């Protein structure tokens, strides 16, 4: 084999490998503020609406799709994430609906509206979905950063282009055709690219989970009492009373198995919650345990099962 042919073969291989790996580029994330003190780490984070630099010709709203996808993956990390709906609602209540105007708000104003330690904001610089002949590609290019609202400092930022590509240099004919077929589904193609973008980002974003693991504490319930007795068959108009003792100032409720959920408990004195449920003639329930729950403002719940008696219905009286 002549050196020219070897050189040509090697060149093709390098190009091929380059093309194959083009879709999985690593994110170049720059950490600007690395808090070594856990108490300085932002705890609560809100992901602001993403902006789109270019006009949305395909009417797919790839920036919205990307935001949701990013949030889904970001919430896997150890931050307290404000749900997207809550963020949008708070911003709307404050009179802000335009993502570009929201991104331009000062950190003090954002902290006042959202009451979180940090925000993530992104500007989607360009998007591309192209399928033609034997070439198919979908790409999202965005600038993303995390801003500490307490100090106004950028904690990390990146500008990255994520691309899923298939073309003449793809290794097999079947893959080329399959990728063409997949890429025509524009929404799915953007979602797939956004997913890859998010997964690659998560590998680089600092995860503070280890800082909090030791101090996680659910609302505590020290005691649950009901008026149920062993082997008691409930009849219509019977009332189940539940008393719960635990951390004060929380939202209390109880469940009757999974059959009846979130029956409210009222905090009568600090730390003592009380409520009841009256059995209806139409109620149908198998034997169920009573479960008391206390929920704090972060949505964390503490549960306690009442094991001294079960709610069971007298079959002869229910329909």
């Amino acid at each position: 084999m002549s050196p020219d042919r070897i050189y040509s073969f090697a060149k093709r291989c390098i190009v091929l490998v380059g093309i194959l790996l083009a879709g999985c580029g690593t994110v170049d994330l720059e950490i600007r503020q690395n808090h070594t003190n856990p108490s300085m780490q932002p705890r609560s984070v809100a992901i602001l609406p993403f902006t789109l630099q270019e006009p949305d010709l395909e009417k797919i709203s790839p920036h919205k799709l990307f935001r949701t996808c990013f949030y889904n993956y970001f919430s896997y990390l150890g931050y307290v994430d404000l749900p997207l709906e809550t963020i949008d609602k708070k911003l709307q209540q404050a009179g802000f609906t335009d993502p570009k105007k929201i991104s331009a708000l000062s950190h003090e104003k954002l902290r006042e509206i959202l009451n979180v330690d940090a925000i993530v904001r992104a500007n989607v610089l360009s998007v591309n979905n192209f399928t033609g002949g034997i070439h198919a590609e979908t790409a999202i290019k965005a600038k993303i950063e995390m801003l500490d609202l307490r100090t106004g400092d950028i904690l990390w930022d990146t500008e990255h282009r994520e691309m899923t590509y298939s073309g003449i240099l793809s290794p097999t004919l079947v893959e080329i055709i399959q990728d063409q077929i997949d890429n025509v589904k524009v929404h799915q193609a953007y979602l797939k690219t956004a997913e890859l973008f998010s997964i690659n980002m998560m590998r680089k974003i600092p995860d503070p989970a280890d800082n909090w693991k030791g101090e996680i504490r659910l609302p505590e319930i020290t005691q649950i009492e009901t008026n149920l007795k062993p082997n008691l068959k409930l009849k219509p108009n019977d009332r189940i009373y539940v008393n719960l003792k635990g951390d004060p100032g929380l939202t209390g409720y109880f469940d009757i198995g999974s059959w009846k959920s979130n029956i409210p408990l009222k905090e009568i004195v600090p730390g003592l919650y009380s409520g009841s449920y009256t059995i209806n003639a139409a109620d149908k329930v198998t034997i169920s345990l009573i479960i008391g729950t206390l929920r704090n403002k972060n949505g964390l719940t503490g549960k306690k099962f009442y094991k001294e008696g079960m709610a069971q219905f007298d079959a002869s009286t229910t329909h």
Partner: protein
Amino acid sequence: MTLITSNISRLILHRALSLLIFLVLFSGCASNLQTKVAGNLNSLSKNQTVAILPIEVSHSGQQEMADMFRQGLYANLKQSKFNLLEKYIVDGLLKQNDLTDPSGFLVINPMQFGEILGADAIVFSRINKVERNYLIIHSSIELSVSIQMVDTRTGEILWRAEQTEHDFSGIGKIPTGISTALFAPIQFVTNKLNLSKMTSKMVDKLTALIKKPENAVANTQFDDLLIAKKATNDLNKIKELQQLKSEWAQALTLDEEVVVLQNDTAEEAPKEVATLDNNLVPTASKIAAEPKNRVAVNAVVHKVHDVETEMAPLTDTPKAIEQKVETPIPLNALRATLVAPHHIGNSGKTNRDKTKPSKKLLKNSTQPKKLYTVQVGAYKTKAYAQSLLGKLTKKGYNAFMTQSEKLVYRVQVDKFKTKEDALKLAQGIREKENLKNFITLIQPG
């Protein structure tokens, strides 16, 4: 001639295209998904919390796939109808409770996870297989997972799925050149991106039904209610324990204080609520204000904890039951010291002014002096009571049988004027006969 050539070319092109479409359809990745959901899955809402537990793996080589799978599962279920408990909270709480080995999760009662994590449902998953094969011009990856979602409140299995995903690279996919025929299989098995893509695809398919359970058709729904085995066992044990407690409670009903309280209840409460213990009608202000009531509540707290610690291991239930029986005092204490029940009228309104605590004292003052006896057993079946009675009598004990109003046959030994004497006999019976017992009061004669 030109026409014939054109027709032949068209035919060849047509066949080539058909072959390609066939290959695309059938030589791509193969997937085998079996998934079923329960109707109750629909009842989960944003008020319910679901925790995705760490994934079980059979060897450390699967850990990477397990992490990707859990992340994908989490991201896919984040937009579901229910609330997902954050991963770091799940892991942190499990660590605090020394539950770090996912292979042991299935033998733990879901109820226990419910209390540890504050979750309404939990997701167990296991990586069954991560297999990568390479044979020069052919390589393949096979992934297999099992998953199960269990309601911690009932033990009901809400979702169960098994999925196998298989993909390959090689001649079957028609390489675009000689170099790709050689390199593509290597790239396929070594590039982590392919594993990531397959995992992502797998999770997409796997969670499609759980994200929209209302789309479930007959063959993707459980025919019957399925309860996790561990939950069934433990619920049965709770029922057994409650049954036993019920029997003991009946056996103790001759205690006069209790009788008085029950008579009061019967007089005041309408018939339909008479069987409910309404001592817990919201009396929070009283509980907080009155020291006596606070003592009563504390006594209950102690008792509840006892039951829970007995319940937790669930390997030595008979012993646990015996221990429970050994301390009957809290039962009386509870009944006697809690504030009297409130009357519930037909309208459903509560009458909060019907407490009659003095009756108990009045009744006590008019009673003839009672004697102490040692109770060694109580049975609903007379034959069992007689059997124990016979054994004790043969051994020379002054045993006798009494019957409660609720037809419980109690086996008791001797009568004493002082509690100390009764305690001595109780101690002797416990040591010599290995019989659990307690001291109770009995009418003279």
